[in-house]
């Protein structure tokens, strides 16, 4: 059995699939894709709703259809695939230890590793809701898997905490399957999901969305019986006088996603405290040369389409790396988040690339704002570039193109700041 590869990709979701195909297109020959589930596609097969592919394929698809577009091509391409294979360790000299039922323990040596493990949902424990510990509390994604893949209804009377996209989509899905969704609660004064989902998942079915509200207590014996909910003040603290009870048997949590970086951390690869993903350069290469990361393991994306795009950046970069075909800048340029910017990816720019005209920088804002300018500032605070945006919100990733001509050899930092126009 083959245990040496040019490229090993960990994770067969949208990120890993895009890396494999794009690396192959760029003549990387020796590729192994490792996936811990029985099937490829990651979370996509359970995301049966439409809305995928509008950016990438210019056509509206469901999650399973979007995944199949990639999987079908992968099978034509003779890339080695091992499913039901769990990676338990990655080292900085690019050795991978993995296990599966057929091969037992595997020691694989790679020239390049791509981390594409995706993310995980925050749970009740992560947000510490007080109360008893009955059955009936699910993350929205777990409920989604039960309903859409395994064929179980998790409950009949539902309260959803969090107005992220998965929460809103599951509110609609549960309603369509005959459950009663009593409320969607959002602790912030704005939705963290897409407007389209607010309209088509909540408004279409008259599901109330309560801003500035949270669950203050869960009650129930064997099963959830009711929740206490309250309005919160400016510091997100519950206001006791506003507390009311809602009877329900099920609570769905859509309270954020966390990149799954246990392997990364154990390998000693440095993480960004805000994205909780590795710190990367414009090739999505971590601070360990030859180990790359992309997709939701790097930072949580709004759309699978953007994940595919990022996977392709990595696929091409892997090819350049293997060909030893790259030239470092005299010094790395740090991209620094400034006013109203929560994070930026990539965090630094390391290469001189002949013929490259611009570099796409992704960022997430802290607070919604309208009619703003995104300013790129140099070390002395001079404006290098400035981009108008009609609206920015934390729910939608913002991107700007950094023109290559601005990248002076002496430049150490570029700060990105948002100001009202």
């Amino acid at each position, binding site marked *: 059995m083959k245990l040496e590869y040019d490229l090993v990709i960990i994770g067969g979701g949208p990120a890993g699939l895009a890396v494999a195909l794009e690396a192959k297109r760029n003549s990387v020959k020796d590729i192994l894709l490792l996936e811990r589930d029985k099937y490829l596609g990651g979370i996509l097969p359970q995301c049966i709703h*439409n809305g995928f592919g509008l950016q990438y394929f210019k056509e509206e698809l469901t999650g399973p259809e979007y*995944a199949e577009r990639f999987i079908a091509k992968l099978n034509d391409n003779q890339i080695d695939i091992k499913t039901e294979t769990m990676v338990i360790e990655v080292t900085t000299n690019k050795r991978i230890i993995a296990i599966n039922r057929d091969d037992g323990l595997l020691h694989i040596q790679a020239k390049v590793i791509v981390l594409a493990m995706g993310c995980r949902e925050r749970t009740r424990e992560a947000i510490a809701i007080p109360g008893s510990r009955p059955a009936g509390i699910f993350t929205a994604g777990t409920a989604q898997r039960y309903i859409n893949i395994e064929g179980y209804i998790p409950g009949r009377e539902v309260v959803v905490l969090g107005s992220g996209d998965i929460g809103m989509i599951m509110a609609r899905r549960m309603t369509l399957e005959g459950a009663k969704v009593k409320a969607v609660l959002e602790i912030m004064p704005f939705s963290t999901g897409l407007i389209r989902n607010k*309209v088509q998942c909540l408004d279409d079915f008259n599901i109330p969305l309560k801003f500035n509200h949270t669950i203050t207590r869960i009650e129930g014996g064997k099963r959830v019986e009711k929740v206490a909910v309250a309005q919160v003040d400016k510091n997100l603290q519950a206001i006791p006088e506003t507390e009311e009870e809602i009877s329900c048997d099920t609570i769905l949590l859509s309270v954020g996603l966390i990149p799954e970086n246990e392997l990364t951390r154990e390998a000693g690869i440095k993480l960004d405290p805000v994205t909780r993903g590795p710190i990367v350069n414009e090739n999505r290469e971590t601070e360990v040369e030859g180990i790359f990361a992309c997709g939701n393991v790097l930072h949580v994306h709004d759309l699978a389409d953007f994940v595919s795009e990022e996977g392709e950046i990595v696929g091409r970069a892997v090819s350049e790396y293997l060909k030893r075909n790259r030239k470092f800048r005299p010094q790395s340029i740090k991209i620094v988040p400034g006013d109203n910017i929560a994070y930026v990816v990539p965090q630094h720019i390391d290469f001189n690339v002949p013929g490259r005209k611009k570099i796409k920088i992704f960022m997430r804002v802290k607070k919604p704002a309208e009619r703003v300018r995104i300013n790129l500032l140099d070390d002395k605070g001079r404006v290098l570039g400035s981009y108008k945006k009609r609206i920015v919100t934390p729910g939608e990733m913002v991107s700007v193109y950094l023109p290559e001509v601005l990248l002076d050899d002496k430049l150490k930092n570029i700060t990105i700041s948002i100001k009202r126009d």
Partner: protein
Amino acid sequence: MKQNKIICVSCPIGCRMTVQSKDGKITSIIGNACPKGIKYAEEEFINPLRILPTTVKVIGGELPLVSVKTEKAIPKRLLLKAMTEIAEIEVKAPVEIGQVIKDDLMGTGVSLIATRNIKRVDFNLRS
């Protein structure tokens, strides 16, 4: 004179529009920031349409369900009724992506199609 509130979903701005109408005919649309809003408000006012994604029971498949969708958008008011009809459907594995699961769903002229492949197996491999 009747007023309907419609939130545009064409972009992240999410314009809150007001459609005024008389005897079912639009007399004015206000609150939109661009022409896309007008088009969206008209469609939403006259006949709001939605694609319906859901699942159908599979017999003899590697999984108990196959994901499906209406090939085109159907009237919004039919969504819940369509769900009760779809609940009655069973399909035999194997199922291929794009396969028509039900023709002419509730006389809409729109087919229900599979959105993934399901292989046939002799026992149900539930994970």
